[in-house]
């Protein structure tokens, strides 16, 4: 059976052209490119909303938008950045890199891979079209807490169904990665030889499969509460609005690890390359990732300390939360130990990885502060929380995606990016992201509440500083787009290995790699 098909290989190895190539493609690199391009687009859509937020907060008082629209901005900014920018960014990286790293020709379920991507644009059409509906876009926060979210206008069912479609997409993407890693590894590529990026992604995939359906259940209950008379979240019928928060955060906390575990994988690939030393403590990294994933399912109520829980609950969730610092600390120490006495160079991917290690740790420490129940009573719903999760998500997740793009762009395109501009992009971003978010710690500790378009004059100075940082950080990202486009179009030819210290199967393929990565499995010794 295989002989007749094998004869067609030459013919099939060429990509079909035109728009339909992108719509019908089953190729992991094409789909990876689609995911990454979509992620970049959404990064700017969500970023524009962030600019509106910072413009409104530039001075106290109401300047540009009305409060309802401001609330829509915070709500949709979060949904777009989480489900449109960060998650698809990591799935795009996985699509490009996982088959190459494990020595496979493609993903295990290529048609489903196409569907996972092509659901995303439709989900975001549903979500973003709500801006033009009676009642405006959802404004109750991305967490969609009942009963507030019930006040959403016509946008309500669109919000719910957009989340459903995003969930279907993520679950299929996760299933694909699991099937690929478990079934498509090259001979000799045992589990404990897998690059950490692959390891972190399998564990992320399990988190996705276990948590996204729970979110689907939660929003389904919202839908039936609003339209079909159920009373899950209404005390008048024996339900409880707090129950929504429990179900939501059972999804929500694993979700934050869905957005950071692949980042750990990226950093674990970059640091050894530019330190020119093997990763310190490989197996402890694997076990630490698995422990974080396990713990992520038993910490969810740390988002709800002030909602009124029994004391035992407050204590349990505090202890489990701070326990996560242990495996996370293992990772930080391993990266530092990898660099110890290495012969380091500081190309752009390494700069972003180092930026990640330092600033993610800042976000981790503020997370620890928030994890301590009595302290959280003070910080809850203030700008301190906003500062915390932007340190882990922007200088954490987003920085790692940028590091990954600079790291693998020469492999993908066959060209080197402009190193000078890359470094400039890093320094501009890093200076302004701190101008943007660091003052928010002070604002929060001084008591400025989040998700409010106006504030007391005592907060005026730091808000202005933060807004200036925000505008400059936003502008700096245009440089990133310029660098990427220039690199795709041309530039100095990249070698197969690209970086002197790079090791792994993906660096044995030419740059750019052939359309089907490994048509004959490489043997891993």
């Amino acid at each position, binding site marked *: 059976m295989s002989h007749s098909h094998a004869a067609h290989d030459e013919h099939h190895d060429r990509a079909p052209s035109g728009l339909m190539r992108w719509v019908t493609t089953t190729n992991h690199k094409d789909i990876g490119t689609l995911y990454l391009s979509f992620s970049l687009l959404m990064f700017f859509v969500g970023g524009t909303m962030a600019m509106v937020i910072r413009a409104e907060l530039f001075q106290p008082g109401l300047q540009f938008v009305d409060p309802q629209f401001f609330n829509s901005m915070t709500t949709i900014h979060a949904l777009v950045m989480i489900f449109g920018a960060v998650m698809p960014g990591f799935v795009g990286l996985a699509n490009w890199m996982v088959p190459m790293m494990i020595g496979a020709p493609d993903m295990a379920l290529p048609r489903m891979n196409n569907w996972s991507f092509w659901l995303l644009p439709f989900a975001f059409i549903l979500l973003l079209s709500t801006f033009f509906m009676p009642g405006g876009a959802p404004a109750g926060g991305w967490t969609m807490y009942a009963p507030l979210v019930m006040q959403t206008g016509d946008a309500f069912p669109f919000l*719910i169904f957009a989340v459903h479609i995003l969930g279907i997409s993520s*679950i299929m993407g996760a299933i694909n990665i699991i099937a690929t890693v478990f079934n498509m590894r090259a001979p000799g590529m045992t589990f404990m030889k897998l690059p950490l990026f692959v390891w972190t992604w399998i564990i992320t995939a399990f988190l996705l*499969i276990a948590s996204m359906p729970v979110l689907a259940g939660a929003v389904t209950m919202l839908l039936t509460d609003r339209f079909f008379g159920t009373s899950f979240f209404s005390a*008048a019928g*024996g339900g409880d609005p707090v*129950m929504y928060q429990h179900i939501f955060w059972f999804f929500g906390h694993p979700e934050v690890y869905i957005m950071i575990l692949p980042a750990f994988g990226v950093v674990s690939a970059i640091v050894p390359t530019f330190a020119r030393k093997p990763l310190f403590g490989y197996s402890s990294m694997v076990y630490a990732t698995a422990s974080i994933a396990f713990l992520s399912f038993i910490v969810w109520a740390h988002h709800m300390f002030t909602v009124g829980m029994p004391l035992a609950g407050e204590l349990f969730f505090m202890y489990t939360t701070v326990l996560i610092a242990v495996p996370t600390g293992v990772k930080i120490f391993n990266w530092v130990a990898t660099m110890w006495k290495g012969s380091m160079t500081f190309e752009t991917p390494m700069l972003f990885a180092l930026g990640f290690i330092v600033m993610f740790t800042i976000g981790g420490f503020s997370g620890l502060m928030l994890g301590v129940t009595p302290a959280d009573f003070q910080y809850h719903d203030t700008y301190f929380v906003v500062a915390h999760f932007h340190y882990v998500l922007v200088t954490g997740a987003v920085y790692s995606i940028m590091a990954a793009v600079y790291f693998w762009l020469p492999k993908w395109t066959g060209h080197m990016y402009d190193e000078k501009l890359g470094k400039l992009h890093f320094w501009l971003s890093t200076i302004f992201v701190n101008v943007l978010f660091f003052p928010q710690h002070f604002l929060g500790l001084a008591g400025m509440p989040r998700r409010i378009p106006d504030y007391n004059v005592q907060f005026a100075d730091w808000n202005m500083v933060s807004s200036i940082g925000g505008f400059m950080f936003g502008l700096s990202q245009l440089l990133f787009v310029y660098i990427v486009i220039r690199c795709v179009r041309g530039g100095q030819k990249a070698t197969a290995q690209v970086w002197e210290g790079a090791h792994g199967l993906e660096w044995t393929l030419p740059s750019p790699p052939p359309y089907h990565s490994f048509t004959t499995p490489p043997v891993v010794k």
Partner: protein
Amino acid sequence: MSGSQSASGYYVPHGSHWPIVGSIALFTLLGGFALALNGYGIGKGSMVIGVIFLLIMLFGWFGTVIRESETGMYNGQVDVSFRWGMVWFIFSEVMFFAAFFGALYYARHFSVPWLGGEGAKAATHQFLWSSFENVWPLKSTPNQTLFTQIKEVIGPWGIPALNTALLLSSGVTITIAHWGLQKNKRGQLNLFLFLTIALGVIFLFCQGYEYIHAYHELGLTLHSGIYGSTFFMLTGFHGLHVTLGAIMLTVILFRCLKGHFKPHHHFGFEGVAWYWHFVDVVWLGLFIFVYIL
């Protein structure tokens, strides 16, 4: 041909337009549903178009896969990929049900007792609904103008017990059908597969009868508070999955009658059988936690 296979046996299918058809179908269906929920007449038409597109997509996509499988294009590796895919798909379904089981647990152990005046959360009871009592099954909701009273709930030992017997025996019949397939006894395969579907359909009829009974005589509805909410959402989503499973089994039966599947190569059959067992296990959970306890 829609795929290529290298000399080493890797199978990589090439471009497919079914996913984009599926995306447009879901978009039309759910966008239409949202419009309909907001009271726009055009929504229902959009839903119908969406369903039609979805059916075309399912027929087209599965048709392609079946054709490729029957012409021998799938090797052992593809088979294993399908298995991984199915297992984790079923697990994601388990987690979907877990959300609703979790809601049931929370209502019974936290929200209803608190509303009844227990623990540190007694204030709601004291100030809003001081006559509310914590009993399960919860027949009288705190606010009976918003959420109606239940006259009687459905006990476990009537139709639900019968339904349990039906689904458990369908689990046996599908296993016998599987043995028939493995031993190439096609008569046994077809007969027991048919019996499995029949048991599933009888289950659905019993469930439908029970729903009508609940709505018309017992006052047990979606509007009757947290008991009705959890009861109908859990059994309803389960019923939906039985319906889906029965449709998939019917497709498999038609394929068996056409002579598809070989004693050692029949993942389509096994995947659906797994799904059927999953539906079965969910029912056991329902029977215990919704009806008995």
